[in-house]
């Protein structure tokens, strides 16, 4: 049986696809057979972030509608062993994702894979609901910013009431906070919510803190998951998050301001 992980947030642009790509790749690097599914029907982007956009032939909706088999639609990652991508459809039909269809695909994938990572679209509409409905684990991706934190709390409410686990009275979805685009300098200046602030408000366990980093844009430009950039802080922070997801203990890194020299401190700035 595969573990189903949803990467969700409510708000758009906080780093769900970047995180799905990084965490899915990280799990595969650890030897777990992993598939990442793009649930953003109509606005497919996981393929671009994973660098496989020119290899898309069939998609998730084709499989649901039985126009293609899973084997035909799954794209095998070229860099990482044990990693597959199931791209979203570019159809504009909002009702393309049915609960029965999604369930059947997830069930079939469960037989083969260890982890199924569901990359949720923004919002709380059908696509986002379908992405989280069958989940065992939720990674709530949040920026240290008011609207993102509020939307994350809203998503937590949906995870706790509108998921399969909630509706069937099963043990609840395991919730994790992933704080992205974190800037320790701005936090120390009192201009940005701190890790502790966000943890206190959302009251769910912290999976990781990804520092704001040029490496993220560079990685998406190149179609390489940022976790493969082991020189970058963001890549290393995602590796730590994957280790914690697998139950290992890792100290937080990159959340403190780097020490300034004496004169710089004396003069400020």
């Amino acid at each position: 049986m595969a573990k189903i992980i949803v990467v969700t947030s409510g708000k758009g642009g906080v780093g769900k696809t970047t995180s799905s790509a990084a965490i899915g790749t990280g799990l595969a690097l650890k030897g777990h057979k992993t598939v990442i599914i793009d649930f953003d029907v109509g606005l497919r982007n996981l393929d671009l972030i994973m660098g496989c956009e020119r290899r898309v032939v069939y998609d998730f909706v084709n499989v649901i509608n039985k126009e293609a088999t899973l084997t035909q639609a799954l794209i095998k990652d070229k860099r990482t062993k044990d990693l597959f991508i199931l791209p979203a459809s570019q159809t504009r039909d909002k009702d393309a994702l049915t609960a029965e269809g999604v369930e059947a695909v997830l069930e079939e994938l469960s037989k083969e894979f260890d982890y199924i990572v569901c990359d949720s679209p923004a919002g709380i509409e059908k696509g986002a609901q379908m992405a989280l409905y069958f989940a065992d684990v939720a990674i709530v991706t949040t920026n240290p910013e008011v609207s993102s934190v509020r939307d994350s709390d809203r998503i937590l409410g949906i995870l706790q009431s509108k998921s399969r686990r909630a509706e069937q009275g099963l043990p609840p979805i395991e919730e994790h906070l992933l704080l992205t685009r974190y800037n320790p300098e701005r936090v120390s200046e009192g201009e940005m919510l701190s890790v502790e602030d966000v943890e206190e408000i959302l009251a769910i366990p912290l999976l990781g803190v990804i520092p704001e980093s040029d490496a993220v844009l560079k990685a998406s430009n190149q179609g390489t998951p940022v976790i493969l950039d082991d020189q970058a802080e963001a890549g290393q922070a995602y590796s730590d998050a994957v280790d914690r997801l697998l139950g290992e203990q890792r100290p937080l890194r990159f959340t403190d301001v780097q020490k300034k020299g004496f004169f710089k401190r004396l003069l400020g700035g």
Partner: protein
Amino acid sequence: MGIFDYFKSKSEPTSASVAKDRLQIIVAHERSRRTQPDYLEQMQQEIIAVIRKYVQIESDDVQIQLENTDDCSVLELNVTIPEKN
């Protein structure tokens, strides 16, 4: 924090602490609504409509709350009727 910052006024809270305070209030408010039964919102609208037949009130003049204790639930309804001019 440099030497010049010590001369600045200390009284003003940072924007991050303002953000935290605002978030704590709105999140607590939205969580309490989340645990309410779905019909409460609609019931509130209907109560407002009935009162408006007689007195002109604003939507936020009616506060409705359901409190659950061990053996009973209390529905608390607060209506603020504007003073006569």
